[in-house]
């Protein structure tokens, strides 16, 4: 046994030593013509920035040998061979969360094998640098490089580039162990406080050099002179939301057809789910005859523009998705833009990119709205009218256009590839990430729970004059959170929907009221095994209750809400019924004296839950105007629960206050019938009251600036603990 163990240890030691020797030996061989390994892919968004970096390497070191590691069948497989580069394959598998153990194991095993394969390549071609742009395809390469460097002390420089504001998983995971992480936005440094470097997004020379000289006549269409050109596209595959919004916007743009010209890149998507060309044309066919006749004069559509730089060059406004690549191109060209971030991406990174552009003053952001489409499927939607109005507002304001253009130009970091290679070669010393960070204003990206807690606290403090802007920084942030919360309402997990419902209320997102009403009325049953445990509908009890609470906070009582509240009064869950009564009491000004509501509330007095009875009694007192209400409240005077008796008294009080009843012998007689004993009381601790009186007085003095400052009190408090 012992000999076996010793044997194993010696073997491991020997193999380790052999690899160590081999690696360093091979490195020495390739010192004259060093090898650079590039990796990154899965999508074109990861490949193109690498090509830009590659341009710079080739320019400086024509003798370097470049090898690209990618995955078969992915974007890099199509792009790289065309560029005349050597591409080798490895195995990789996307990480799909830890929820599904089978997929997790599959991912780990495939990545492990991919890493081994890369390590063998590295023995064959030991790299001087490994540069990656992230994407799961690059995980094995980076891992292999880290192993070589960490375990065998191989002098490999490992560098990552992050294109988006919110780093992808691979970069986030390996960021700590690599030499440098280049980021495109200053905000992103927060994720790499040790080794982050702001470089910008590497854009290929061809995008922002030349091309402008080309006259528009070389294009397959002609733009009449004096028109402002709006270029709308949703990436190479096209974006359904954008395409549909464009068609929807056409009638609103039609009156301005002599001032604008729209170039529409529909995208190449021809899948079963969405055929960009056919869908768009079908929708155009449904437009008015008059518009269709005039269409070719102010609208041109094509699936894909192979010379997109030319289109950029002639356009005055760009409407596009906010992927890192697109916005870098737009910024490089110095074009004003309306950005429509794609929803549901990890970390909302397109949203963050768009907001970064907006903060720089270079763009406007239009958020997608999640709704159900005609077929009942979940889909994102942009309102055509809103899009048209935004386009018209920007395009008609030439001062705004030129400012946006300037801002866009200054937003773009022109020399990204140069900075990257300079830092890699040690020719430039990057700034300390922490110092850079201190100078940027990073917007807090709160989790939903954190947001909810902050808003709840603000609302509890002062509910009458509440506005979410007490907590949030500005309208921009409010708009973003409203957009994010709107999406939560459609989550399959009810706990997330529930948070969404609460947040809709606290963010005063009034557009979502119809949806809240729909959730209250929804009667889709849950599976039988959940019903067996007491569940009822898909929009669970808490959601229905909280939707009502949100409606109360939103303070809107229209016909949709009215119908929902009426239904909620008959809800099987007692908390929903009680909350519905509270909503009625809240809107009592509008409902007082209305027969139907009084009748509904009187029915509730026979409710099995005393909480509902109590709330109904309060509500009756608020909306009742005649003897029937009073008699009903008197009848609760001998109710078993003191809370109900107290609520009835409160109801009578508010009727008195509203002058619908006056002191009379009947009133006194009715009041005498009340049982006044109670099983509960509110304890009164004089010492606590005096203590809080002192504190309250101090707070007030501080607020009025009559004594030093509040920090003194905090200091004292800290000393105490």
């Amino acid at each position, binding site marked *: 046994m012992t000999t076996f163990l010793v044997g194993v240890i010696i073997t491991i030691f020997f193999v380790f030593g052999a690899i160590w020797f081999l690696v360093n030996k091979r490195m020495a061989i390739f010192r004259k013509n060093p090898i650079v390994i590039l990796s990154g892919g899965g999508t074109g968004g990861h490949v193109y920035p690498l090509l830009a970096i590659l341009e710079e390497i080739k320019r400086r070191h024509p003798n370097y040998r470049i090898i690209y590691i990618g995955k078969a069948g992915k974007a890099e497989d199509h792009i790289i061979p065309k560029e005349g580069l050597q591409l080798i394959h490895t195995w990789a598998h996307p990480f799909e969360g830890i929820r599904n153990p089978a997929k997790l194991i599959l991912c780990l095993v495939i990545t492990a094998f991919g890493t081994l394969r890369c390590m063998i390549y590295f023995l064959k071609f030991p790299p001087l640098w490994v540069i990656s742009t992230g994407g799961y395809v690059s995980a094995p390469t980076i891992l292999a490089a880290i192993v070589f460097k960490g375990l065998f002390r191989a002098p490999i420089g490992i560098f990552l580039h992050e294109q988006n504001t919110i780093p992808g998983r691979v970069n986030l995971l390996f960021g700590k162990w690599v030499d440098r992480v280049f980021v495109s936005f200053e905000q992103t440094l927060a994720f790499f406080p040790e080794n982050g470097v702001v470089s910008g997004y590497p854009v290929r020379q061809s995008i922002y050099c030349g091309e402008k000289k080309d006259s528009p006549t070389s294009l397959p269409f002609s733009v009449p002179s004096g028109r402002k050109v709006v270029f709308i596209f949703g990436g190479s595959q096209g974006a359904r939301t954008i395409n549909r919004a464009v068609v929807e916007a056409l009638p609103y743009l039609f009156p301005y057809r002599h001032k604008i010209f729209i170039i529409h890149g529909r995208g190449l998507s021809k899948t079963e789910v969405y055929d960009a060309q056919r869908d768009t044309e079908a929708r155009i066919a449904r437009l008015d005859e008059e518009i269709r006749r005039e269409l070719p004069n102010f609208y041109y559509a094509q699936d894909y523009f192979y010379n997109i730089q030319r289109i950029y060059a002639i356009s005055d406004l760009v409407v596009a998705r906010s992927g890192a690549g697109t916005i870098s191109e737009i910024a490089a060209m110095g074009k004003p833009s309306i950005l429509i971030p794609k929803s549901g991406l990890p970390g909302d990174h397109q949203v963050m990119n768009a907001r970064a552009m907006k903060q720089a003053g270079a763009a406007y952001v239009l958020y997608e709205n999640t709704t159900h489409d005609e077929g009942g499927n979940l889909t994102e939607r942009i309102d055509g009218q809103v899009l048209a109005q935004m386009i018209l507002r920007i395009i008609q304001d030439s001062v705004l256009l030129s400012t946006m253009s300037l801002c866009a130009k200054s937003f773009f970091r022109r020399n990204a590839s140069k900075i990257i290679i300079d830092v890699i070669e040690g020719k430039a010393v990057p700034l300390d990430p922490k110092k850079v960070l201190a100078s940027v204003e990073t917007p807090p990206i709160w989790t939903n729970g954190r947001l909810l807690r902050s808003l709840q606290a603000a609302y509890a403090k002062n509910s009458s004059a509440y506005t979410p802007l007490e907590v949030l920084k500005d309208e921009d942030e409010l708009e973003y959170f409203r957009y994010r919360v709107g999406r939560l309402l459609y989550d399959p997990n009810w706990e997330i929907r529930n948070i969404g419902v609460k947040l809709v209320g606290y963010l005063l997102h009034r557009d979502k009221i119809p949806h809240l009403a729909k959730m209250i009325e929804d009667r889709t049953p849950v599976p039988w095994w959940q019903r067996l445990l*007491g569940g009822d509908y898909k929009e669970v009890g808490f959601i229905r209750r909280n939707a009502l609470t949100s409606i109360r906070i939103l303070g809107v009582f229209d016909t949709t809400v009215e119908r929902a509240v009426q239904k909620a009064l008959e809800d099987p869950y007692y908390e929903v019924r009680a909350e519905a009564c509270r909503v009625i009491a809240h809107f009592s000004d509008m409902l007082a004296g209305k027969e139907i509501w009084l009748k509904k509330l009187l029915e509730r007095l026979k409710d099995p839950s005393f909480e509902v009875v109590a709330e109904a009694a309060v509500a009756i007192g608020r909306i009742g105007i005649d003897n029937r209400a009073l008699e009903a409240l008197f009848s609760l005077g001998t109710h078993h629960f003191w809370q109900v008796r107290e609520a009835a008294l409160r109801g009578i009080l508010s009727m008195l206050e509203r002058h619908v009843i006056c002191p009379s012998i009947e009133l006194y007689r009715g009041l005498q019938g009340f049982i006044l004993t109670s*099983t509960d009381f509110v304890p009164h601790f004089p010492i606590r009251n005096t203590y809080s009186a002192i504190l309250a007085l101090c707070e007030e003095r501080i607020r009025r600036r009559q004594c030093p400052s509040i920090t003194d009190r905090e200091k004292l408090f800290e000393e105490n603990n």
Partner: protein
Amino acid sequence: MLYWLGNILMSLSDIFSFCRLVNYITFRAIMAALTAVILVLICSKPYIMFLHRRRILDQQRNTGLGLALGKSDTPTMGGILIIGGAFFSLFLWGNLSSSFLWSVVFATTWFGALGFIDDLKKLRKRSGDKGLSEKTKLIAQAAFAVGFACYVTSSLSPLHPREATLLYVPFLKTPLLDLGHGFYTIFIILFVMFVTNAVNITDGLDGLAIMPSIFTISVLGVFAYVLGNKIYSAYLYYPYIPGSGELAIVAAALGGAGLGFLWYNTYPAQIFMGDTGSLALGGAISTMCVLLKQEMLFPILGGLFVAEALSSQIQDKIGVKFIGKRLFTRAPLHHALQYRGLAEPKVVVRLWIVSGILALIALATLKIR
């Protein structure tokens, strides 16, 4: 220690013949209880002042109920008083060579320490929500339970090896079945975890956990006395467990310390026991049940704890987290009663009465079999 001393003195001279009193379990039990009560009563006041000075004050959980209004800044970790009082009294009056005694003492210490760490963490983080995570607590509890189960079923066990894995059920003379080592170990792990957490959950209102614990421990003390007595156990058809009488003294000491603590803990409380106290009491109760082979008596004897724990868990795990509505109006039980409009002292006394009745029923199972 006095047990040893008495025996030694007795063997030295006839003058110390009164020392034979220490050989009577009843005498030692009464003395242990008295010592513990007096000790806790004396020590409480300076201890509470000490807690105030060090600002070891209760950190409220953010339940959103607003029920515990006016209770903030009450000192916590009163469990140390209970444990300290009981241990000192045991040191004086217990037979320190009894493995029964040491089993319970070890369990109390282990769970007391677990609760202490939890309390300390809450104190540091200034939030009642940020103590040890549920998982960590359960792992620590399970770790003890595994060790304890192995100990009880091993050859070192104070129980007779033939008895160790048998499962007795109240109202039945003969053991229901032999679980065997494997199942019995699992059973003990679940039992210990359930009991300790049940006591922990019950500790939600002033004086609510301590009195039912005293009832439970006292009845277990009576059982220990009977089972450790050859004649009584034979008369009542119980398996004779030699040496288990020592648990009566442990029970008396814990009960006495609990009474002394209640003096200050009753509504409105000047001190809370904290997790230190509730987990320690739970540990003591569960190990005593196991050592006396009365595991299945607990659902009756500690029916209140069971109701509190089940209502809380069903509400939380099935209701709130799974199907998205409240299955009980409020949970645990005492909050449900408060919700129905009962004042805190009323809830507490009513639940004391309930647990007293349950203790009497449990006591009746001694004879009704």
